């Protein structure tokens, strides 16, 4: 196992061995029935989550029972199956189901990440060494896509700040830029010119150092599936999902603002900041509401995706209509 298990989950939240053994038995027995696995999981996961598929209940090794876990706003988690089958990852195709179907060609191990640019301690790291600095933990975040749908996802990862501190950026470094792997063999979608490859994203240094900003290596307590950006991706919960660059191979400190891919693709529609903001509509559609997957009625979108108390200070005095 390359990544440490979360040591900080209260023992009360860890499923007792007896229960998960029973669970395995039950699932084993029901496997003969049609839909056995999924139905068994749903029955046991049971209770309030009530979703159609609680794969989480089948997590091997008696990990956390996710069915009772809620966000800080008491939101139900989006089922694992939905989180891993409805993805925007154009490197594997532009339809939502394409990444789950096509991302098997990605080889997330071995993996190296290059840290460079304006920093005192550049280097090329193997994934295991790169993540070593960080304290791994589960983080339950809302994920709001610029297309006006959203999920609640239990990521597993560590603060981006941990690796920034190790790199020791120079005073002149005002931004950090990330790049996704560029390899049309592993990422067949890159053979099409639909976007300018490789995918580029970036953050201002204060955004990057913010405690909510994480690098995730897992979801639902397991390694990231390829379609979710294995082996390592960015998660910035108060920004639209496209800021969360996947399958990262480089991190560069720089003085000028990174020219992120979607801004390059259509700068009147996608900006550098991409903060979730119900008041600033996409030129072609409204951002006032969103569809939380699994819900019928659309929800009101929250300023900074509901993380206003934590992040509003970063943008004091900025016109969010100009810096969208």
């Amino acid at each position, binding site marked *: 196992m390359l990544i440490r298990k979360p040591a900080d989950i209260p023992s009360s939240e860890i499923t007792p061995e007896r229960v998960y053994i029973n669970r395995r038995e039950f699932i084993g027995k029901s496997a003969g029935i049609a839909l056995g696995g999924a139905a068994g999981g749903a029955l046991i996961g049971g209770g309030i989550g009530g979703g159609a598929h609680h794969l989480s209940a089948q997590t091997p090794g008696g990990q956390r029972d996710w069915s009772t876990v809620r966000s800080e706003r008491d939101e139900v988690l989006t089922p694992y199956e939905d989180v891993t089958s409805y993805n925007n990852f154009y490197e594997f195709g*532009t339809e*939502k189901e394409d990444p789950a179907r096509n991302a098997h060609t990605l080889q997330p191990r071995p993996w190296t990440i290059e840290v460079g640019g304006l920093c005192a301690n550049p280097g090329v790291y193997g994934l295991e060494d790169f993540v070593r600095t960080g304290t791994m933990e589960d983080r339950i975040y809302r994920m709001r896509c610029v297309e006006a*749908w959203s999920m609640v996802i239990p990521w597993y990862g560590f603060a981006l700040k941990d690796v920034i501190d190790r790199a020791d950026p120079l005073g002149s470094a005002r931004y950090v830029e990330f790049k996704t792997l560029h390899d049309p063999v592993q990422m067949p979608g890159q053979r099409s010119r*639909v976007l300018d490859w490789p995918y580029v994203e970036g953050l201002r240094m204060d955004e990057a150092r913010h405690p909510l900003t994480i690098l995730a290596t897992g979801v639902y307590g397991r390694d990231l599936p390829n379609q979710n950006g294995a082996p390592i991706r960015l998660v910035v919960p108060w920004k639209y999902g496209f800021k969360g660059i996947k399958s990262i191979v480089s991190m560069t400190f720089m003085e000028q603002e990174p020219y992120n891919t979607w801004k390059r693709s259509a700068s009147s529609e996608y900006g550098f900041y991409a903060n979730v903001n119900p008041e600033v509509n996409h030129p*072609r559609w*409204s951002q006032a509401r969103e*569809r939380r997957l699994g819900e019928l009625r659309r929800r009101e979108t929250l300023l900074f995706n509901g993380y206003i108390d934590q992040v509003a200070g970063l943008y004091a005095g900025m016109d969010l209509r100009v810096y969208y």
Partner: protein
Amino acid sequence: MNKKRSRLLLKGLVWLLGLAPAVWLFWRGFTHRLGANPIEEVLHRLGDTALILLLVTLSITPIRRLTRWTSLAPLRRTIGLFAFFYLTMHFLWYAIVDQTLDWEFIVEDIVMRPYILVGFTAWLLLIPLAITSTRGWIRRLKKNWQRLHRLVYVSIGLGVLHFYWQVKADTYWPIVATTALVVLMLLRFPWRRRSGQASPGGQVLAAGQPGDKVSSATQGSSSD
């Protein structure tokens, strides 16, 4: 006898193909195969189907002229009505399920979002065409019927624009749809000129020729 039989067969086939997308959607819905965002999936598939069927109606005249297979003509109305059915479902699904009848937002969408305005207009334009698709209306409106039904070109054009306008970056399918529309339009205009007695506007030549619209429409109605 044989001709009648093949016409019946063709008609059955059209009904089968027209209903297939709806059956397919129902089946996927009942078996939970609509993915993580079923509301959006159904919305998009209804829209796709409507646009495809509209393009198919446009292809009937060129195909008929190329193959001289006149029995295709009566099918155009059936396919057109299927297209209208799917387009209506597309709008109702949007208003009732996607927007849960929140009129404030629906009105804002139609007024403020050009792609929705354009799609909505495409649907509105087809309503009078669907209503006047009966034999009675064809007789009553005479030459005006054909004039009225030219609105279908505008509607399809708006439909393709609606499709194009909502795509984020991958314009592959909208380009396919646009190309199909352009090709189908190009295929009909030279034909009209070649077959025409140099009549401006084309209405005059519509009167007596076997391949033109009015007669094909009446043919369609009489055989339906």
